[in-house]
């Protein structure tokens, strides 16, 4: 049986989609923010492979078919960016100041913490893009020689944290301007946080989804200034 699963072309994709589907179902049934479908499916697939003894490489051979679509899918982010360009122009100063401070504080914070904890260059650059959307973050991680799998997990956990705790945390800091809330959530917790921002309100949601793309692009531009400091 194990050989059949390892040599199958479809099994990797099937396992991935089924685990993700189960994650979506669990999220719907429980309504808990930390039941993030991607996080749940990462745990399910890993557990399945460890239990059956199927190697990551043979899973990846099949599942890589999905990853092939990553670049075209990322490019599609241009469409919501185009559609929200009017909001960006109307609130240009706030968006610019908000996203730039978000990106700079993220890069500086990761650098500082990496020095404090004594991380090497590889671990440091793995976390460098952790607040931006996975699609762009993976590219940044790869460019500087980070560990892509760990980078993806860090990005997802960051998003889940933002999704679960952003509302209470922003209230605690007395941040109640809808635009500021949206920028804060999008800059720190990308798409997973944005889902929460849309639950809070439409302005928060629009601002948050706008900051996903803007912060992603700004990180690509500003990361080289930080990447070689450690």
């Amino acid at each position, binding site marked *: 049986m194990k050989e059949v699963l390892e040599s199958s072309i479809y099994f*990797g994709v099937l396992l*991935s989609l089924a*685990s*993700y589907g189960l994650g979506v179902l669990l999220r719907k049934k429980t309504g808990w923010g930390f039941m993030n*479908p*991607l996080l749940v*499916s*990462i745990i399910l697939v890993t557990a399945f*492979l460890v239990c059956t003894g199927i190697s*990551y490489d043979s*899973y990846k051979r099949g*599942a890589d078919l999905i*990853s092939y*679509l990553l*670049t*075209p*899918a990322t*490019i*599609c982010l*241009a*469409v919501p960016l*185009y*559609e929200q*360009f009017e909001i960006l122009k109307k609130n240009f*100063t*706030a968006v610019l*100041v908000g*996203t730039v*401070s*978000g990106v700079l*504080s*993220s890069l500086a*914070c*990761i650098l500082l*913490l990496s020095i404090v904890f004594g991380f090497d260059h590889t*671990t440091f650059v793995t*976390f460098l893009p952790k607040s931006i959307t996975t699609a*762009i973050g993976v*590219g940044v991680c790869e460019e500087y020689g980070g560990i892509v*799998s*760990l980078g*993806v*997990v860090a990005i997802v*956990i960051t998003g889940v*944290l933002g999704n679960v*705790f952003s509302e209470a*945390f922003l209230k605690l*800091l007395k*941040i109640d*301007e809808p635009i*500021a809330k949206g920028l*804060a*959530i999008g*800059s*720190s917790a990308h*798409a997973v946080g944005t889902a929460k921002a849309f639950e809070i309100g439409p302005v928060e949601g629009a601002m948050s989804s706008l900051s996903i793309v803007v912060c*992603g*692009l700004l990180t*690509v531009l500003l990361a*080289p200034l930080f990447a070689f400091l450690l």
Partner: protein
Amino acid sequence: MKYLFQFLVILAFAFAGELLHHFIHLPIPASIYGIALLFLALEIRVVKVKDVADVSSFFIAIMPVLFLPPAVGIMESWGLISENWLAIVAVIVISTFVVMGFTGLVSQVVIRRRRKK
């Protein structure tokens, strides 16, 4: 044919992004060039939203699944993480809240100052 055409447009931008990444030696991923090119094309109306609308919403909707295979790779690099997992968790948690708080406070100050003017 509609879906085929939309997929073709998106793939063309993916390929153009790949070419730029190949010829321009900057640490910028191919997908970023693709986003920039497609955005420009939409702005100057070479491409209309309806030329990519259905397939792009499909791609954006399924995007999380596409990260599953690389993320599962964490089981391969587990040895590297296991010894300083506590530090890694600390970095992820602390930086998330620092960024969220800082961005929110700075944007709020800017918005309120502009409103007063």
